[in-house]
């Protein structure tokens, strides 16, 4: 294992918050690196928006030489989001940030050292200040048939299509909740999919209230929504509508929807469903950052309860790109020791936090969704544990011990949020490694793992 050079500021996560933090820290003269599991920068929201001309210098570890462009860079796009992303990618390149892609942070090996793994090789990243910008994942609500191939996350299908999945001519239903459904449906249609329905679980009255909040807090978002609506002319958008079952022999063939008292079935090639977002808080929790209301608690400088560790973007509360950019810049400047520069973004952050509040109220999941999963519906997809098997326990820990739910490869990242929604169970403590890593690699740092044997979440692959 090679020990890396020291960084003044290390950032985990290469989405908007992480990129903004990296730019702020590097432009302030700090030696800055940014690390991400994905093969290209942008996180989820700017996935696939990197064009060759805007590429920062990438250092794909462990051994490859630095290259100008990561794999998968595309022609420059022309939408406002493309232009916003491109401007940040250019700024990241100009700032001289070391970008480490395709690398997942799995553990902390020492006070200010993280262990990162790429392609079976481990590397230590030592830092003075750390910014956690780990983003969010989609939340899923289990329903009969949700484990069938081609029932995919909404952002998940978008990511797969961005990665080259041929979707032209396929019948796709988009379902779940939140503004993401709109942008996913618009993107799918643009690439030639036949979007047959957008099923939004929340009701019209909440959507209308949210529309008024947009006018006040983020008129740009309202324009964006209208542009999506224009792109989606002719696609039915139903509020108060959700999927109740997916069926098919070896893969998805049809989906049954409900709206009010009406139930009907649509033939589908893909069901893209997402029921909001869950922040990725595994790494902050592993490092001991205090949580409050399911999100990482931060002070006005985005510093967590652990001194020198900052957090920005979705892990501090789901709130979208603009909030993530403001928080990222505050965290980056603060980590670089430049509070006056950080202060400039306080008012934007305050406004976007109010927007986030309106967003989360508008798209809160309805109670009926808790009843979708039948007794024999699988909740934990890694270990195939059903609702019936889990429901007889009082909490996440005993259910884990008796049924193995949440103990497979995803370590509860999917079923944890589902169990919280279905049963009200709070998430368990986090233990290293936070992603599966080979025993061989762990053996290299055996001394720091011995005390934590039997954690059960360390699957050797």
């Amino acid at each position: 294992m090679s020990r890396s050079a020291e960084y003044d500021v290390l950032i985990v996560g290469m989405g908007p918050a992480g990129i903004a933090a990296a730019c702020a820290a590097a432009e302030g003269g700090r030696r800055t690196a940014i690390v991400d599991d994905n093969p290209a920068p942008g996180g989820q929201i700017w996935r696939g928006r990197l064009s060759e001309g805007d590429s920062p210098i990438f250092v794909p570890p462990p051994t490859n030489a630095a290259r100008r462009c990561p794999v998968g860079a595309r022609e420059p796009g022309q939408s406002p989001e493309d232009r916003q992303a491109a401007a940040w990618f250019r700024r990241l390149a100009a700032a001289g940030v070391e970008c480490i892609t395709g690398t997942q942070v799995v553990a902390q090996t020492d006070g200010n050292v993280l262990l990162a793994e790429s392609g079976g090789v481990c590397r230590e990243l030592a830092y003075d200040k750390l910014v956690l910008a780990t983003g969010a994942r989609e939340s899923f609500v289990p329903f009969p048939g949700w484990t069938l191939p081609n029932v995919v996350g909404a952002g998940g299908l978008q990511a797969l299509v961005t990665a080259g999945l041929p979707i032209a001519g396929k019948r796709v239903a988009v379902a779940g909740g939140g503004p993401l459904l709109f942008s996913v449906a618009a993107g799918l249609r643009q690439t030639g999919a036949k979007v047959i329905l957008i099923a939004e679980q929340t009701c019209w009255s909440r959507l209308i209230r949210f529309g008024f909040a947009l006018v006040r807090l983020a008129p740009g978002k309202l324009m964006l929504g209208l542009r999506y609506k224009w792109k989606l002319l002719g696609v039915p958008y139903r509020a108060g509508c959700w999927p109740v079952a997916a069926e098919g022999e070896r893969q998805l063939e049809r989906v049954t929807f409900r709206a009010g008292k009406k139930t009907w079935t649509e033939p589908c090639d893909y069901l893209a469903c997402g029921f909001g977002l869950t922040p990725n808080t595994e790494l902050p929790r592993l490092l001991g950052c205090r949580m409050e209301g399911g999100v990482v608690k931060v002070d006005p400088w985005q510093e967590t309860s652990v001194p020198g560790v900052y957090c920005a973007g979705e892990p501090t509360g789901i709130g979208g790109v603009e909030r993530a950019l403001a928080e990222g810049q505050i965290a980056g400047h603060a980590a670089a020791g430049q509070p006056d520069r950080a202060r400039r973004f306080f008012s934007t952050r305050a406004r976007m936090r109010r927007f986030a509040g309106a967003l989360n109220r508008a798209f809160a999941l309805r109670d009926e969704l808790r009843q979708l999963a039948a007794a024999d519906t699988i909740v934990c997809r890694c270990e195939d544990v059903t609702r019936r098997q889990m429901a007889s326990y009082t909490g996440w820990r005993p259910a884990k011990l008796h049924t193995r739910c949440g103990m497979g490869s995803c370590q509860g990242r999917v079923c944890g949020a589902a169990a919280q929604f279905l049963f009200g169970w709070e998430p368990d403590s986090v233990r290293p490694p936070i992603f599966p890593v080979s025993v061989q690699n762990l053996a290299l740092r055996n001394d720091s793992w011995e005390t934590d044997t039997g954690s059960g979440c360390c699957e050797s692959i």
Partner: protein
Amino acid sequence: MQAVDADIRVTVDGREVRVPAGATAAVAIAVAGRAACRTSVTGSPRGPLCGMGICFECRATIDGRPHQRTCQTVCRPGMEIRTDEP
């Protein structure tokens, strides 16, 4: 969206498929006509869910290394992907 480079060739369960440069192994599996990447512990077919490296549903054997997340693995020319191994 236009790929920057020409198509590349990989094999899925021994069958050759062409994918655009930058495509992931998960895409190659779909292009090969397979919706499932793996079989679950109770024997049901599973394909990609999250598309972003979180859920581990899209695992397959890549160039002999088992349990690789195909959604996070970019295709290289000649890559061998297997969905029919444990």
